[in-house]
């Protein structure tokens, strides 16, 4: 059986890589193909909520301002800006030399203040499906002063306000519906932006091909074409890199690092996206509403062992809702060690008893949980993680049914219908480490990030307090408190942060990577002759 599996794997690998090689041969030498671990659901910056889409939107769109490698705010679509002393009014003078990518068969339209106003209004519209609303609730209104001037009025001054205006601007003439945006609008699949690259084609295999924008206001990019290639299997993606079928992997599977490290053709570049993996619980299930049960599940699994066995120890176990590289991580909260006995004790305290078959039950109801895992995560290591999870929980009398689902179906089941008991997933944060959309009770609902339905007054009030303060140290203290509370409450079993490396061929030059958005500086990359 094992031999057949290996043979099958080799045949599939050969076919996939051969087809990639064939398309690689057709590629222009100035094009850059990069491997992604899945297909983007949408390609616009408003409805998307996954990293694959985020990376693409970074190539297609611009914000009013950007953030450079030195963490400085720099002009993008806004040529300059000013604010009042209190920080309630922000006025942006827009560039007058920016054109939208042309719609097929039409002339390129000019970017102006109406686009900025339209973006904000669409983004905040009640019917628009977007995770951005919670982030921009602090904006009271936006006003067009003239064709190239807009003014934002804030409800209150906020920390790092200017950095918030990095949100991407979409054209008012882009969406079919000019009032709100949902996933049915053709714009979300075929967007036009102002960015350094414009969408050329989305192939039947969901390869996204983007070509250099000759009218880009910062100058035509040096790379002629960016191609995002989805790979369901990370082993095959790695093979594709080593066979030169792709030029870059945005996130190398930790198990492939030793191989790539020894190959001088490739450069491994670390970038520290603040991310972590977790098992998230649906507290709408009454059995999971009790924090003792959730804590028991955390204690029942040996995270160190899983990290070591399945990821060669290339990461670190965490204790709460922040990554260890974040300024918000509470260093006093240590990850609870594996303790099967304590897990059983907690389940018993929560009213569970051992049933005849050795499984835990309460009021005659067995603790059977459905675990949903997106298929994009169906790497060998992830399979092992979820199977180990199932195995650990079985030892404390908890039954787990694992279900792998296609990425979009998984998102619908989890974010829209909330049909799950447990999910396995990962969050990635920018430097602000803002967890408000994950745990605030106002963020419970369809397509919102608090998909587990977690509600806690103390957490809510701490989140609100953190939003209101203008004091960095106060916010840091509040986050430390949040970390401690959420570690104790265990709405998730916080697992680990993995090592983040990108790998690329040494023919790529001047590669600076944004730790979160990845392609922010890609307009300056170029391809040399290579070896």
């Amino acid at each position, binding site marked *: 059986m094992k031999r057949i599996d290996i043979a099958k794997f080799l045949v599939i690998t050969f076919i996939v890589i051969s087809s990639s090689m064939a398309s690689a041969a057709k590629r222009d030498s100035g094009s850059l193909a990069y491997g992604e671990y899945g297909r983007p659901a949408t390609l616009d910056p408003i409805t998307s909520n996954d990293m694959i889409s985020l990376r693409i939107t970074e190539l297609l769109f611009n914000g009013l301002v950007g953030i450079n490698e030195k963490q400085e705010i720099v002009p993008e679509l806004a040529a300059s800006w000013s604010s009042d002393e209190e920080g309630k009014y922000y006025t942006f003078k827009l560039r007058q030399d920016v054109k939208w990518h042309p719609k097929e068969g039409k002339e390129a339209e000019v970017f102006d203040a109406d686009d900025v106003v339209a973006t904000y209004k669409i983004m905040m519209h009640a019917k628009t499906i977007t995770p951005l609303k919670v982030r921009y609730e602090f904006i009271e209104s936006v006003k067009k002063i003239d064709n190239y001037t807009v003014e934002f009025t804030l409800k209150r001054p906020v920390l790092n306000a200017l950095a918030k205006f990095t949100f991407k601007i979409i054209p008012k003439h882009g969406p079919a519906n000019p009032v709100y945006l949902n996933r049915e609008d053709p714009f979300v699949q075929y967007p036009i932006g102002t960015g350094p690259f414009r969408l050329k084609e989305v192939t039947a295999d969901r390869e996204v091909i983007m070509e250099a924008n000759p009218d880009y206001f910062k100058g035509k990019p040096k790379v002629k074409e960016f191609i995002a290639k989805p790979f369901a299997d990370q082993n095959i993606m790695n093979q594709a890199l080593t066979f030169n079928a792709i030029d870059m992997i945005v996130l190398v599977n930790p198990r492939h690092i030793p191989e790539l*490290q020894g190959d001088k053709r490739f450069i491994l570049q670390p970038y520290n996206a603040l991310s972590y993996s977790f098992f998230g619980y649906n507290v709408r299930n009454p059995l999971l509403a009790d924090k003792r049960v959730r804590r028991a599940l955390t204690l029942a699994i040996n995270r160190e062992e899983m990290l070591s066995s399945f990821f060669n120890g290339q990461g670190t176990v965490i204790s709460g809702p922040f990554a260890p590289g974040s300024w918000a991580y509470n260093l006093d909260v240590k990850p609870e060690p594996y303790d099967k006995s304590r897990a059983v004790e907690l389940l018993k305290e929560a009213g569970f008893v051992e049933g005849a078959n050795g499984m835990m039950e309460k009021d005659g109801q067995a603790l059977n949980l459905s675990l949903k895992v997106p298929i994009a995560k169906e790497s060998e290591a992830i399979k092992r993680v979820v199977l180990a999870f199932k195995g650990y929980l079985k030892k404390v009398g908890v039954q787990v049914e694992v279900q792998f689902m296609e990425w979009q179906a998984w998102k619908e089941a989890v974010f829209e219908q909330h049909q799950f008991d447990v999910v396995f997933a990962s969050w*990635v944060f920018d*430097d*602000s480490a*803002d967890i408000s959309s994950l745990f605030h009770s106002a963020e419970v609902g369809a397509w919102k990030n608090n998909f587990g339905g977690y509600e806690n007054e103390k957490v809510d009030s701490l989140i609100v307090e953190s939003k209101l303060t203008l004091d960095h140290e*106060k*916010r*840091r203290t509040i986050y430390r408190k949040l970390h401690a509370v959420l570690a104790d409450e265990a709405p998730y079993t916080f697992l680990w942060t993995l090592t983040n490396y990108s790998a690329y061929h040494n023919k790529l030059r001047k590669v600076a990577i944004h*730790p979160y958005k990845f392609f922010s500086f890609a307009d300056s990359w170029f391809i040399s002759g290579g070896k």
Partner: protein
Amino acid sequence: MKLLTSFLLLFFLSLNQSFAAQNPIVVAMKEYEKRHYDKSIRLLQPLLNNAQSNQELTRLSYGLVLDKNDRFHKALYEASIESQIEYLEKLSIKKGKQKSSYVNLFLGEAYIQAGKYSKAKTALNKFLKLPKLNQADKNLGKLLLIHADYKLGKKTAAKTQWNQLRLKDVDTKSTLLAIYSAYNIKPIATLMSQLETLLKKANKPYSSRLVANSLAIFLAANQVDHAIQFTLDNSLDVASIKENIGDSKQINFYDISILNSLAELYHQASIQYLQEARKNPKYTDTALFYQTEASMLFKRAKQTKTFIDEFKSSNSLPTKLSLLKPVKLGAVHALYGKKTEAGKELDHVSSGNTSRPEILADILTMCAGLQISCAETLKISVQAAAVGQGARFRPLNAAIGQYFLSKNKSEDALKYLELARDKSNKNKVEANDGLLLVDLSEAHRLEKNYSENLEIYFELSKHFPVVRVIQEAVQGTYSMEHRSAGDVKIF
């Protein structure tokens, strides 16, 4: 440094394999190779007075562990000064009702550690002007201000002023005792006795300030074993002050001198134990090599003088160490004000060793450590690193990175330090030299990649809790410096 471990392991393996595997020195040195210095120290300690064990070999091993530990803590101390000042300077300019009271006290102290005494005075005077200071804090501020004056040459006045202070608070009193011990102002026996009284009175866990001061006093009393035991028995990551401002704001302040005290302790202890190891002629030259190197890298001109003549005439060094002998002899000029001569001599050594990455790496390490300009060596090393492959070239890449870092070229430094890193075990101290990790974290901090810096220290903290001093400061800077929109995505 791995050279000697290999040498020791080979020595034991040649005796008997099963014996070697169980031999506590071998076990300890395996922990040492993983940079688990505390574990290694704990394993070797019982052997130091065990008549059954090979006394000189035990001392050589112990000295070696301490020697590596001292350089690591020295690097941490230097990194802590920079990160602490960066954080506190940013914190000190914050305005508003909830402004920290203690920021200028700790900023002043950090400036003293950095040798910036006038700036220290300005910060401390600001602190002392605050209304409603309690007496203990006021006294601490005053005695630090006097310390800055002392460093600026007003020694007699300073001694008089210190003498006039009436101190009750344990941490403050211990600070004064540590100052007295550093400048031999009072008899060490008296200071030791006063410290013992303070330690009995103090609540555990001791603050980083009390630990730092205690270590400094133990060291002045030449009680290195007691001091080492003190580090093993106490927490090293306890804040000196937790300042609560209102209900929702707490700032943790640490005394960075704890890292200096640890570096000094391990240095002094290593010199002492290596000296004892020299009693056995088999180890004399090897121990002397490490004593000389350590005293040079700690820039102890006087101490180095006591070793250098003997070192020059040493003739039974293991081959790999003897290859590095000309490097030490070239670099030593820098300690006596002849940096140009040192640079020329080292460049000359490198020109004869273009195909030996380990020698080039050693030269650059000395150049970086002693601030010698070694342009020719750098050029040769960069060329060698460009064509070299494999683990053998990692120390060279690390040394090039360290050299660039010493010249404040953090972007260039980062490039080479990343090449030196074992990416399969990115931040693991077991796979990456501790000094490399500290250099990497510093280069990342200077490039404003704060999260990379914090990830490294997060891993290091599992074995060296004292790095909390740095973590808190970098977290603080990062929280103020980052510019981002508050985005989060699933994947």
